[in-house]
């Protein structure tokens, strides 16, 4: 034991010693006074080590009771912070120049007009401003195409919302999605493109992929058509469990269940996942709920289901191309045997 402690460093690095200094127990107290008695020559070095440990300080900030109440209020209202997207940025002085540099196609020019119209600040603004992101939201029944400032293209599905910063930073391109969108990302290896959703985060360099992340759905799905992406299951960060990272190859998809956290990886049918942007509705082994949800979003209708208990387990597969709702329902009802009635935005289904 004796030769264990020679220099100050030996004391400083010793778990038992520092524990005694910081939080002395009666046993430790007894042990160390006995130790000192049998090692009187170590007295000075021991007390030097003790003093150093006791003197180490870290800058303190004053407590803030108001902050505690304010944050608790936000927690109970479930207001998430804006830290991830609403960051302040130095206002780019040459934003118009940059804009026109990119304006290569008519579609793009239109989008830029939209961007500029959204910009309500006066021409001269203070150096640092809170740059509010652009929010593009489709109601049920409407799809849209958006060209981003970096020339990447987004097909935004119905009932979906995307947040885009007014200008991407020099180091990373971040957009925030809830709902479904297909991304064709402009190649820029120095500037990763990140799609953030409630549950997953997809990082890409130059590639095309589909993200399906409706908040009310039971799972989130990412499917890659070309290139390579990294998918992170960000739900993990609330817990001690490590964040999950996955890489996808072309035609691979990954699906995270929100119910049991299970993960499903596989290859997908291209039309099934990305067909929606060409006007195809695909069903493959779809449950009743999946069919209803998809139709609600696609046609902006609500379903009323009568005699729901009579529904057995559905595994419905079919495809429709630019078909109206009545024809789609006729086709499904023929197979699944139900009656339906369409009135304005309400569809009543009777089993």
């Amino acid at each position, binding site marked *: 034991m004796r030769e264990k402690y020679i220099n100050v460093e030996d004391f400083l690095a010793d778990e038992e010693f520092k524990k005694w200094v910081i939080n002395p127990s009666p046993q430790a107290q007894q042990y160390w006074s006995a130790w000192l008695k049998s090692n009187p020559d170590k007295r000075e070095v021991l007390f030097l080590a003790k003093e150093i440990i006791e*003197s*180490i300080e*870290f800058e303190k900030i004053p407590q803030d009771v108001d902050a505690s109440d304010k944050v608790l209020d936000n927690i109970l209202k479930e207001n998430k912070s*804006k830290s991830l997207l609403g*960051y302040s940025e130095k206002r780019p002085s040459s934003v118009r120049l940059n804009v026109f540099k990119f304006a290569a196609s008519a579609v793009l020019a239109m989008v830029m007009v939209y961007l500029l119209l959204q910009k309500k600040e006066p021409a001269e603004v203070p150096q640092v401003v809170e740059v509010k992101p652009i929010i593009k939201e489709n109601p049920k029944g409407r799809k849209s195409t958006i060209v981003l400032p970096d020339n990447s293209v987004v097909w935004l599905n119905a009932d979906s919302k995307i947040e885009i910063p007014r200008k991407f930073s020099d180091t990373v391109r971040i957009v925030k999605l809830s709902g479904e969108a297909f991304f064709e990302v402009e190649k820029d290896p120095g500037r990763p493109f990140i799609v953030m959703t409630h549950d997953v985060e997809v990082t890409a360099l130059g590639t095309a992929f589909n993200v399906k992340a409706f908040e009310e759905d039971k799972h989130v799905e990412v499917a890659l058509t070309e290139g390579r992406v990294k998918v992170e299951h960000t739900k993990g960060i*609330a817990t001690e469990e490590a964040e999950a990272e996955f890489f996808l190859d072309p035609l691979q998809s990954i699906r995270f269940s929100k119910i049991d956290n299970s993960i499903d990886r596989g290859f997908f049918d291209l039309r099934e996942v990305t067909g929606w942007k060409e006007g195809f509705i695909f069903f493959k082994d779809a449950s009743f709920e999946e069919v209803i949800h998809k139709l609600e979003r696609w046609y902006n209708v609500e379903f009323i289901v009568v005699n729901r208990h009579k529904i057995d387990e559905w595994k419905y597969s079919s495809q429709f191309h630019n078909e109206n709702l009545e024809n789609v329902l006729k086709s499904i009802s023929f197979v699944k045997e139900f009656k339906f009635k369409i009135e304005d935005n309400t569809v009543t289904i009777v089993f």
Partner: protein
Amino acid sequence: MGKFVLNDNTAPINAEVASPKQHVENGYFENLEDAVIWDKFRAGDKSAFIFIYKSYFQSLRQYGYHFAGGIQLVEDAIQDLFIDLNRNHQRLSATNSIKFYLYKSLRRRLIYYLERQNKTMRVARAADDLTFKISLSVEQFIINRQIESERRKKLDQALKNLTAHQREAIYYFYYENMTYAEIKEFMDFKNINSARNLIYRAIDSLKSALR
């Protein structure tokens, strides 16, 4: 894993400043083990959730400040952390130390938020010199006379010259009284020697000031 021993400076009960909630004031939770309080929260007990928040907000805020070097981001991160904890309460794992659990979750989240804020995928922290601002306390040296003022200055400077990573480890080791095993777990190291080496190297850098 051993218990994450609380330092008086950061003890949750001291951090509890003003609590309007009766169940907190009547001390019902204060006499319970961490594991029990945590389980109540996991089972959906709202007052356990409020108690945990009230008990740890100030110390989490202080710890987050050490780690990130700023306040706003830390308060945002604490807010989002508790929202997610609350939403996912049924899916959380058990713990014997709520403090360890919360600190580690906050640290993980801050790394994540800082990455986004810095807008680079590679930089995972705030500017190094803003984090874990360390010094040798002056008051301590008025009372004790082991270290004369010349050596004190040198030591103080040597501490300030440590890397951010080393200062962080020093904080856990001497300030939060963690063991090497706990530091390994807390900082997500693969093995305990990484934790040891970090402390050893820090102490090694102080050597010249000590001789």
